[in-house]
């Protein structure tokens, strides 16, 4: 062992600096740059009439319900009495909120996976079952999932659901932005296709933000000045514009920090701790052993002298 005191201090100092500097860098610079080619969706809440046809189309496209489910079943508006969440059988739900102005139309909001630019679910997943595709949709690989459901805890929008009713092959269930459909030429997500009002637009995220701004500019006073999802948790690929403040429509008020960045501080320290901590202990061990050896030598010298 040739580590001396100076060498040990050097290692300790380097580790310390790295531990402090490393995570702060991770927060400042996002891991993934937002791509101009990313796809996305824009829901214009002011156009939504709450017809729930998107719910039907979604279930049909994802084979979540019986194959011949009648579309008339979705004309039942009594479901709006309660606030609903996405579940294993419904990747999207429409909720109804009071009108923006008294006597006006109620405000209907479609809810589904937001397809975050930096998905917290993917970051929380131990086995990388979630993946942000280069096209933008966040998709899930059932075959590697271990069923820990950390993703459900991690999601800031409480979207992923678990098929608890399936005892043998339970899986996480959430919107895929109809990844299979949009991968085909000319394909668009089922909800956007059926929407009678054209309230759901599908296209490149960059274009959708421009579209949202144009809509706001063309119809002043129709929308609140906020594109939900443009900056929330580092940006999402599903965007919303609304005639009513988002906080009153069940949208969580979130900062602009991507959720993976919050855990990155801790997670990036793990390898450092794994290197620095043994090094520190080994250094301490080497130091004390040397001291002991030196002590032994001194004793021996003293005893020789004696």
């Amino acid at each position, binding site marked *: 062992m040739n580590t001396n005191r100076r060498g040990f201090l050097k290692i300790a100092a380097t580790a310390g600096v790295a531990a402090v500097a490393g995570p702060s860098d991770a927060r400042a610079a996002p891991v993934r740059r937002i791509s101009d080619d990313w796809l996305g969706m824009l829901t214009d809440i002011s156009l939504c009439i709450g017809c729930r046809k998107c719910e039907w189309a979604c279930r049909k496209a994802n084979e979540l319900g019986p194959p011949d489910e009648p579309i008339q079943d979705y004309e039942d*508006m009594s479901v709006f009495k309660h606030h609903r969440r996405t579940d294993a059988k419904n990747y999207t739900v429409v909720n109804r909120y009071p009108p923006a102005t008294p006597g006006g139309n109620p405000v209907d909001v479609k809810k589904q996976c937001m397809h975050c630019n930096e998905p917290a679910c993917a970051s929380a997943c131990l086995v990388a079952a979630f993946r942000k595709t280069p096209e933008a949709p966040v998709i899930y690989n059932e075959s590697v999932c271990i069923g820990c459901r950390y993703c459900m805890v991690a999601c800031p929008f409480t979207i992923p659901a678990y098929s608890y009713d399936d005892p043998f092959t339970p899986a996480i269930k959430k919107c895929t932005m109809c990844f299979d459909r949009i991968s085909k030429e000319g394909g668009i997500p089922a909800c956007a296709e059926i929407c009678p*009002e*054209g309230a759901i637009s599908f296209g490149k995220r960059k274009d*959708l933000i421009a579209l949202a701004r144009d809509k706001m500019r063309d119809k002043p006073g129709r929308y609140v000045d906020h594109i939900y999802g443009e900056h929330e948790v580092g940006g999402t690929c599903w965007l919303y514009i609304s005639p009513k403040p988002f906080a009153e429509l069940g949208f969580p008020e979130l900062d602009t920090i991507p959720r993976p960045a919050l855990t990155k501080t801790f997670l990036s320290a793990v390898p450092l701790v794994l290197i620095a901590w043994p090094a520190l202990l080994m250094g301490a061990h080497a130091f004390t052993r040397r001291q002991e050896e030196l002590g032994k030598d001194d004793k021996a010298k003293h005893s020789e002298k004696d």
Partner: protein
Amino acid sequence: MPRLFIAMLTILLGAAVAESARGQDKKMPLAMEELPCTFCHLCENPTPRYLCLRRCPRTSAASIDRKMSLKRGPDLVYLDELENLYLPVPFDHKGHAEMAKMTEGCAVCHHYTPEGAAHPACISCHEVSPKQRDMRKPSLKAAYHRQCMSCHREWSHETACGVCHPPKAGGAKSGVASRRPTKDDIVGKMHPPIPEPHTEIYEPRSKPVPGEKIIFRHKEHIHRFGLKCVDCHREDSCSRCHEKGKEHKQQTRTLAEHHKPCSTCHNVDDKNACDRCHWKEGESKPKPFDHASTGWPLSKQHVELGCRACHKRVPFHKLARKCDACHGDWKPDTFDHAVTGQVLDENHEEADCANCHANRKFDAPPKCDECHDEDDGIAFPAKRPGPEVIPSHRKNDKSTGG
């Protein structure tokens, strides 16, 4: 050196020709020169990079109202793109055009109409495919629904498909009309029944004469004259009933406009006829219409008939004072006397009409003295030439003749 010179000259010449050709292609449309920049551009200084174009150049949209009159537009339009799924949606174009008059005019819906052209069909701009090349332009489906739902949702809070799209028969749900609506229905779609006023007495807002009142017998017009709602309520706006909460501005109308709902049938210019509707308080009310005033008092058979049985078209016209004015195909050989309520027995069947109806005056009581002696006490109606039945025209309330 000369070779290089020739080559350069050729390139320069080529470039000049190409430039002039391009210039010809990019000829500006004449109309463009007169438009202010802000007609298309939102910002003051557009750049090639940032054109800040308006979403839809609503060229001459405002001029539609001047070009198009309500009369030239269709009354009822069937939207039948989805005929395989639903019955066609009857769209009351006229009614909506009237309502539009109160707001922004035709341009509310016909938002893009090029100069000198009729309104282009929605489908000529709005694509059928839900995947739009231009995200700013809604698909055909969205364009239609946005036009309708933006108002209808406000009024009815109904979003179910069946409200506008009557399902095809077989798949029809109860309570939804599954027949194709006709032009005669008040709004294209079957209108729910409206309680009819029996007699309406109006007090004119701007009273020309103190204490003057106007009588209008609504029920008589519907049931006796057989008029349909649309015969009089031609110019009526749906919003008169459907937007009750709103204050409607009473427009100043000329006398002719004021009388328009009545003038289709009534001669409102006849100064002697005013007292048919107008009367002063304290005086006796104008009496209901009496057919005798036309010089043709209605006999027993005819009085029960509606006006429409003889006067087929509105406004009602004078008919010739002859039976065959209505009973056009009447022939003595084929005439079934039972339609009058009087069946002829064997003895009378073969008789000539004139034997009983002297001089063929059929509205006068028949005479029996041609064959029978008066002394025998045989006279109509004490003695009848056969059994009495219910006249066929009273059974189904239809015309006896033609």
